[in-house]
């Protein structure tokens, strides 16, 4: 028997953004339904147990960007969310050396000086610039991006806010901000540092998740996107969600359910129901349909409109704009169950930096070549990876004495090239295994016994991520973070404020401003716009201050 209930609002997709929007709406007194295609909630912020005793953070794996205002508003700690900061990180060379990153300033200075005294001096200038940019951008995350082509008072007001903030930077810094946003992370690092290894260590944040190389202009902003979060007020710090990233989604879901919300899992959206240019509800793949005057899609903009909306309800140039929105799969993921901590001969046993993010890339040129491989449809012969063993800090992730390792790999193409043909169909067990082998070969640079430690490994290509989570091409940000797709351009100029050409249908996912990462800002912003549209703006907590 199929169900046909009625709600005040429906959220399509139980990712962290969908759940965040749902929470705010439910707390504002709306009857809210969340529908999810998988049997579990969380989208790309999930913890799943694919091998008995171990918990993987299958997709996203560390936490920093999640806006503290949202954590507070939705009382996530009360629902079990605990973020534990990790202390540092390291990049290992082929010849047994390493560069270690410490959150302790003096330790970091000493370690930098070991590689290059000049770099130790330059680091203060580098981090000052990055921090200044972070402080500049953070107030914009929970606001609408102004539409410069609009003369509506609200857009003018937002534009004025932007100008006032820009003015507050002072003359040099304003110009410096324009420069920073358009520079490549490679060039930015080259003008500060000399050591190839230090540069390689710092550059990773500029390319994670993007179809850009370290020398592509605009990647300095991508670095910023990874630095603008915080853990317990420490800007730029990252941490583990206790119990894996699913803890965030689970806390959101619990908060939502306490506020009276309903979650239905196990069947995805077939299509959004539209009548006379207004959304009227959703039809699910299992035949159920639900009615509501407001629907928010947590899916990316391409999936929402090109797969689940009848084209006849959309203007032609909107469809064109959605088609050319760039969502490029560029990352893969390995989740590994280990029977013991791997041996790391280069580092002192139990060194604190081993509990942070570990890498094996040693120069910007190596990273750039990894990108060149991806452009040709190949996974990187020398991949960049961001590798962590969270079970060292969070014992809930693995049985006692055993460990769980997460390896985020850049780059892996969605449309893999085989024998001259580029297609996602080329991802199969053989290619997945070959991809994982190339990663293990490089991990062995730091951990020679890694292959012997593996009990189980989940290998995820961009195709797998798309298939399971629903992210187009497996792109972790629901759309490239290039300037033509940020702020008022995200996802489509003229539709950058969560509204769409269909009245009542909103975008609540990372395709909308301010973009991806487990930030939850798009979800909160979408909820604010929905409540405003319903004349209930007063029921949304005010983040403007």
């Amino acid at each position, binding site marked *: 028997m199929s169900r046909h209930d009625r709600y005040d609002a429906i959220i399509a997709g139980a990712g962290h953004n969908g759940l965040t929007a749902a929470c705010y709406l439910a707390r504002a007194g709306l009857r809210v339904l969340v529908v999810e295609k998988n049997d579990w909630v969380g989208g790309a912020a999930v913890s799943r147990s694919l091998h008995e005793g171990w918990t993987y953070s299958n997709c996203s794996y560390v936490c920093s960007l999640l806006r503290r205002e949202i954590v507070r508003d939705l009382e996530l700690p009360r629902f079990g969310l605990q973020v534990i900061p990790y202390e540092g990180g390291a990049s290992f060379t082929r010849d047994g050396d390493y560069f270690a990153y410490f959150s302790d300033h003096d330790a970091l200075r000493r370690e930098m000086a070991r590689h290059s005294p000049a770099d130790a001096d330059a680091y203060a200038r580098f981090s000052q610039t990055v921090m200044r940019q972070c402080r500049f951008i953070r107030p914009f995350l929970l606001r609408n991006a102004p539409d410069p*082509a609009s003369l509506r008072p609200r857009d003018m007001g937002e534009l004025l806010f932007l100008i006032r903030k820009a003015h507050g930077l002072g003359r040099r810094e304003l110009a410096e901000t324009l420069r920073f946003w358009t520079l490549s992370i490679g060039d930015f690092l080259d003008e500060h540092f000399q050591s190839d290894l230090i540069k390689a260590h710092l550059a990773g944040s500029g390319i994670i998740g993007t179809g850009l190389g370290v020398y592509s202009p605009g990647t300095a902003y991508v670095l910023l996107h990874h630095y603008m979060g915080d853990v317990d007020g420490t800007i730029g710090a990252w941490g583990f969600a206790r119990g894996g990233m699913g803890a965030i989604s689970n806390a959101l879901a619990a908060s939502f359910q306490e506020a009276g919300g309903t979650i239905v899992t196990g069947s995805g959206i077939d299509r959004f129901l539209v009548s006379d240019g207004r959304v009227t509800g959703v039809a699910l793949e299992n035949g159920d349909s639900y009615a509501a005057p407001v629907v928010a899609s947590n899916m990316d903009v391409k999936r929402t409109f090109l797969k689940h909306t009848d084209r006849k309800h959309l203007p032609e140039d909107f469809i064109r704009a959605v088609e050319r929105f760039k969502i490029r799969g560029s990352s893969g993921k390995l989740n590994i169950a280990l029977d013991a901590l791997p041996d790391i001969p280069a580092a002192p046993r139990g060194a604190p930096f081993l509990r942070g993010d570990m890498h094996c890339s040693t120069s910007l040129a190596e990273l750039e070549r990894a990108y060149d491989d991806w452009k040709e449809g190949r996974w990187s012969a020398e991949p960049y990876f961001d590798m962590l063993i969270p079970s060292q800090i969070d014992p809930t992730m693995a049985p006692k004495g055993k460990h769980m390792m997460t390896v985020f790999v850049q780059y892996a193409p969605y449309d893999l090239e085989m024998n001259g043909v580029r297609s996602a169909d080329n991802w199969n067990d053989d290619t997945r295994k070959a991809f994982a082998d190339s990663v293990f070969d490089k991990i062995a640079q730091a951990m020679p016994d890694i292959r012997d430690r593996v009990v189980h490994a989940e290998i995820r290509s961009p195709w797998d991520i798309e298939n399971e989570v629903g992210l187009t091409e497996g792109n972790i940000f629901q759309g490239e973070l290039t300037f033509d797709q940020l702020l008022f351009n995200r996802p489509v100029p003229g539709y950058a404020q969560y509204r769409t050409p269909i009245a009542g249908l909103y975008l609540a996912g990372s395709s909308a401003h301010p973009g991806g990462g487990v930030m939850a800002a798009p979800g909160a912003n979408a909820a604010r716009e929905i409540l405003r549209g319903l004349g209930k703006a007063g029921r949304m907590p005010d983040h403007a201050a």
Partner: protein
Amino acid sequence: MPPDATGAGKGAFDVVLIGGGHNGLAAAITLARKGRSVCVLERADRPGGMARSSEPAAGAHVPEIAHLLYNLDARVARELGLGLLLKSPPIPAVSLAPDGRHVVIAGDAARFADGTPHPDAPAFGELNARLRRFAGLLGRLSLKSPPRFDGGLASLATMGEMAALARLGLDLKRLGKHEMREFLRILLGNAHDLVLDEMADGPLAGAICADAVRGNHVGPRSPGTVFNLMYRLGSGGAVRLPEGGMGAVCGAFEQAARAAGAEIRTGCDVVRILVENDAAKGVALRDGTTIRAGAVLSSAGPLQTMTLAGIGHFDVEAVRRARNLRCKGTVAKLNLVLGAAPEITGLRGDLAAGRLLVAPSAVAVERAFNPVKYGELPAEPVIEAVIPTLTEPSLATNGRHILSANVQHIAHTPRGGWGDAARNRITATVLSQLERHMPGLKGLVEAAELLTPADIEARFGAPGGHWHHAEMGIDQILTLRPANGLAHYRLAVHGLYLCGASAHPGGDVTGLPGRNSARQLLKDRIL
């Protein structure tokens, strides 16, 4: 002002200009016409810089570096008395296709060389027209000193300086919502996506992408390349081979400067800028001569200029920024003297006189960019070639022809250095690539001259051997050109100005940095 600062003494000038390239000459014209006594000092034995021609074989005149005129603004040309240069008709571009289906591009029109319509012609026409429209708006920012943010955005002084930006904002609003949004979307985008969103990959897409990366250290996938494309289109996008060849262009600049009363001295190698009490007072030459002046304009790069004046005169921050200038030259020039005109497979004679592009696809242009990032040499570089003797037979005697090719992307200095092997390899690579379309070309070559970016730096003083003295990236334009804090031609030493391509608005044979710098000097009333 101390009395000697006027520079009015015997043998002294109001202004001395370092470098007799087209920008130095444009500055000289502007100043001399305002009645200032001006002396241009050129290190080489003739002025013209990268716009001059040379004679690698007796009787054959090749454009040494710049071989086409495409960004000279009509108003500026008239103002400088160079209007004649824009009289010759624009030439088409021909994107050579591996399968012989060459694509001819003239203005907003594209077709196959055999006259049949190109399937992507309508999309190209629309795209090019839009880019030209946007470029026209941006082009207006080129005519003034870049906007300043001094004193914050709200001060009256800044409001004045911001007038040009405000005008741009108004012009954008006037385009209508849709076009304004499109402008803001694509402004910082990359050429690869812009083009492939509209058409299939092939020689037409390749040609656009090649133009988007020309002269710069970028590939078509690099964000910012749409801006580069628009910069090229800033004066309408017409590409000309002026009557008399490119030699006539620097000849015209030189004549206009002399006619305005400027003195041009060649063979003068400036080794020092004289600084007294933090003010520029003239220059010292290698032969020991000093030439005193009330102000010094330098066509050299910012770091080179600072070094000439003594690096200690500048604050650490300014020097650091000058040192970090992004200026990796990527274009090599191959000049060939040919015994006869080469046949081009599948191309009529008059089209052979066009701008010949070897850029078979957007993907191929990106691939041609890859090796330079690692100091390696490309196997299949992107080439822009012209055979100016087909239009102007007098450039070479005895029925010979010249072929001038810009080759991209070539590292300033490849790993292992520029030995004969590396040089010969590049020449052979380019000849083989051209030979595919010009059978028998190798047999016609009587003389060949290869200028690598390293040669260009040594011969013309261009920082990094970069065409534009500083990369034309979004992070190095307007208020950021050449660097944040150095953007208004003035340097910290009183009376010392930058007037070369590293200054706003940037490279190409425009004369604008020189002209704008001269106008800034006049406006500052220090003479």
